[in-house]
């Protein structure tokens, strides 16, 4: 999976990113950059990272997600990670990943609900 295949979609006041199933490191880094540029460009409340197709969340990928959420927060937005699979949750925990106060949701629908009441950045 290479860089050009990911898209950051603006839907009303939310950015929705569907993370590819098995992205390489370059794609992951590029994704972060795209998200932050979109946060700068659009008046959106926040970001939903849909990871429902992701099977492998290693420490590099996880760190990038955690950092991206923090960067989005610094820009006044909220992040919700949606759709983590059971195997990924088990593995991430055994690996020792700490997600801190990163907000999560079962799926994109519920993530949208969570962001609906978030304050506008305007």
């Amino acid at each position, binding site marked *: 999976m290479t860089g050009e295949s990911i898209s950051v979609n603006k839907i009303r006041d939310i950015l929705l990113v569907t993370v590819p199933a*098995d992205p*390489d490191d370059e794609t992951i880094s590029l994704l972060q950059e795209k998200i932050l540029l979109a946060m700068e460009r659009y008046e959106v409340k926040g970001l939903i990272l849909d990871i429902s197709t992701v*099977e*492998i969340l*290693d420490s590099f990928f996880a760190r990038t997600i955690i950092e991206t959420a923090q960067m989005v927060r610094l820009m006044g937005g909220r992040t919700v990670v949606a759709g983590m699979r059971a*195997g990924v949750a088990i593995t991430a925990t055994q*690996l*020792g*990943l700490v997600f801190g106060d990163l907000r999560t949701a079962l799926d994109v629908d519920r993530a949208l609900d969570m962001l609906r009441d978030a304050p506008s950045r305007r």
Partner: protein
Amino acid sequence: MERKKINQVVISGEGDILEVRKTVRNEAAALGFGPTDITRIVTAASELARNVFRFAGDGVMLCAQLSADGRIGLELVFEDQGPGIENIGQAMERGFTTGGGLGLGLPGAKRLVDQMDIVSAPGQGTRVTVVKWRGSKAA
């Protein structure tokens, strides 16, 4: 115990970490590992392959099928000729890092497999061997 080599991946670039993941996923599935165990093995392999790339620049992963007492296992060996590890005990501590990462790579990978062995010395390269048995208790 019988060991049969089944695959190998040369690690020389960042993109090869992805190749390692694909290969390990395919081999683990072919050996009949369940989906959660596959996720564990592939995640461990991803951490170890990234260590090879990050610290040594290049190396190789060797993939073997183990058979012992009617059990089937998958063995992954990550070898490089890089700088080696000065203090393996310290490298196994959670949160210890010299590479700017989270310091989860080695200790994290160890928790995802059944066995891990590290042979390394400064200037002598590093060999990390991990084994996951099918249907093991950590399944």
